[in-house]
């Protein structure tokens, strides 16, 4: 084909810049495919521009709840293998350039998955992983130790927060943003205040929190600039320890203390859909009942997740179910 030479000149005239912009539109399966075209294309498919954010928010584990048996979640082997394969592809192509990883609250990975991604994403700055059921303390600690550049984490409520907060304070010098999904009591607040005194941003939106915990944050977190307690179920202890009172309105003390924040988000309006859902779910938001974008939202812009991005789209989701 005499035309071959002139055609080769053509795509290279377009340049890497343009090629990478074209590839930005492809999902990871398509990227895996075209990365085999030639060396230049393999390079282009691994360009950091494509891999800064790995949003696997459309991937869920195939699981059942086992309320009597820790860790209260059972995931089948096939689901684990599927996750392994997907992570393999993503880590192979991204070549260590992922800085933000997002997982669905029903994605229950094991220590081995976590370790795998921690080893291959040393520059991770942000982790959104609301499903820790199957991860051990050791597993999470080891992962955090690899992520020295970690700045932001979205996590579920855990039973013993101090060990995690400790590890973060030791390993992640730039850590400044935390989001907790679930419940938030005074022990959690205390762990944060002790280990993460430099924390700047905290979101507890749609969680069940105690007034005690809130006051501890307001009193002790000197460097906190942004606090989000929108749609939270705020509870106050009563003399009878088995009873709690729901606080429907923030009192002046709280509002005054919170006025020092650059941004203080709160919402307890009965007309608000999120607040209504919190009420209906008795303070423990059952995210699975609602739209997918709902759990991804946050009034704090740096914590809001926005759209799913191209890397793992609905086509990938469909393909994944065939694994």
């Amino acid at each position, binding site marked *: 084909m005499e035309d071959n030479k002139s055609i080769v000149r053509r795509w290279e005239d377009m*340049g890497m810049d343009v090629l990478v912009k074209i590839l930005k*539109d*492809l999902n990871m399966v398509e990227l895996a495919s075209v990365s085999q075209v030639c060396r230049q294309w393999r390079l282009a498919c691994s360009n950091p521009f494509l891999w800064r954010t790995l949003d696997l928010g459309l991937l869920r584990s195939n699981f059942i709840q086992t309320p009597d048996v820790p860790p209260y979640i059972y995931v089948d082997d096939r689901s684990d293998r599927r996750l392994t*394969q997907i992570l393999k592809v993503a880590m192979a192509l991204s070549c260590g350039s992922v800085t933000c990883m997002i997982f669905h609250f029903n994605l229950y990975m094991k220590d081995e998955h976590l370790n795998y991604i921690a080893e291959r994403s040393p520059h991770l700055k942000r982790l959104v992983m609301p499903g820790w059921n199957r991860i051990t303390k050791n597993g999470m600690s080891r992962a955090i130790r690899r992520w020295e550049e970690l700045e932001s984490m979205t996590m579920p409520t855990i039973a013993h927060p101090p060990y995690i907060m400790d590890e973060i304070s030791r390993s992640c010098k730039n850590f400044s943003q935390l989001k907790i999904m679930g419940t938030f009591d005074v022990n959690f607040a205390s762990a944060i205040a002790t280990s993460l005194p430099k924390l700047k941003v905290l979101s507890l939106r749609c969680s069940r929190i105690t007034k005690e915990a809130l006051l501890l944050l307001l009193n002790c977190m000197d460097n906190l600039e942004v606090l989000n307690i929108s749609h939270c179920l705020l509870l106050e202890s009563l003399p009878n320890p088995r009873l709690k009172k729901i606080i429907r309105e923030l009192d002046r003390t709280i509002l005054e203390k919170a006025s020092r924040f650059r941004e203080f988000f709160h919402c307890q309006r009965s007309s608000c859909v999120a607040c209504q859902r919190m009420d209906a779910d008795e303070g423990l938001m059952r995210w699975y009942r609602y739209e997918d974008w709902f759990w991804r939202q946050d009034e704090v812009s740096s914590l809001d997740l926005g759209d799913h991005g191209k890397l793992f789209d609905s086509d990938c989701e469909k393909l994944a179910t065939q694994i």
Partner: protein
Amino acid sequence: MDMEDDTVQVRENSAEDTEMLELPKDPAEVKASEFIKGESSKEIPVESQQPELPENVVLQSLEKEEFIIKLAVGQQSEIIKNAILDGRGENPVPLLNVSAPILAKAIEFWKRHIDAAEGEDLTEWDKAFLGDLSQEVLFELAAAANYMESKSLLDCTCKFIADIIKEMKVEEVRDYFGIECDFTEEEERKMREDNAWAFEQ
């Protein structure tokens, strides 16, 4: 994108120039916000306005062929926009990396987009417009859009090419771009293994 040799020569106003440039009738009517989309419109006091923001812009292709277009059309390229709005503005704007036929296509695209009604969906028109082009012109247009920093044109051409290669197998992509595979068989085997899930279709 090589911008080092950007020879910016501001020509002094000559008689020929003023024939091509239509000065605005009333300087007070010219607001910077009309030329820069997206910025909040502020009233600019007459004294500090650039009195000679032209209504038309002249673009010069690689072959030195000249194209006259309205400023609003040209501002869809950051290079053109900056060339006119920075300082005294240079006219014609030299686009040394863009050949005349490609520049003509870019202008056609910008014109259609500028003329679009509020909220009009141009995706079908875009697809037809790009679909009509030969592969060579398509690639050159993408390169030109990148060089001229025209987001609308670049996004459009890139998406169009992306949609084409999404449907292709590896060998088909190589054919389409005329690329020779430079991997060893061993390397190819390893890649296939690493990406096993992705190829189980």
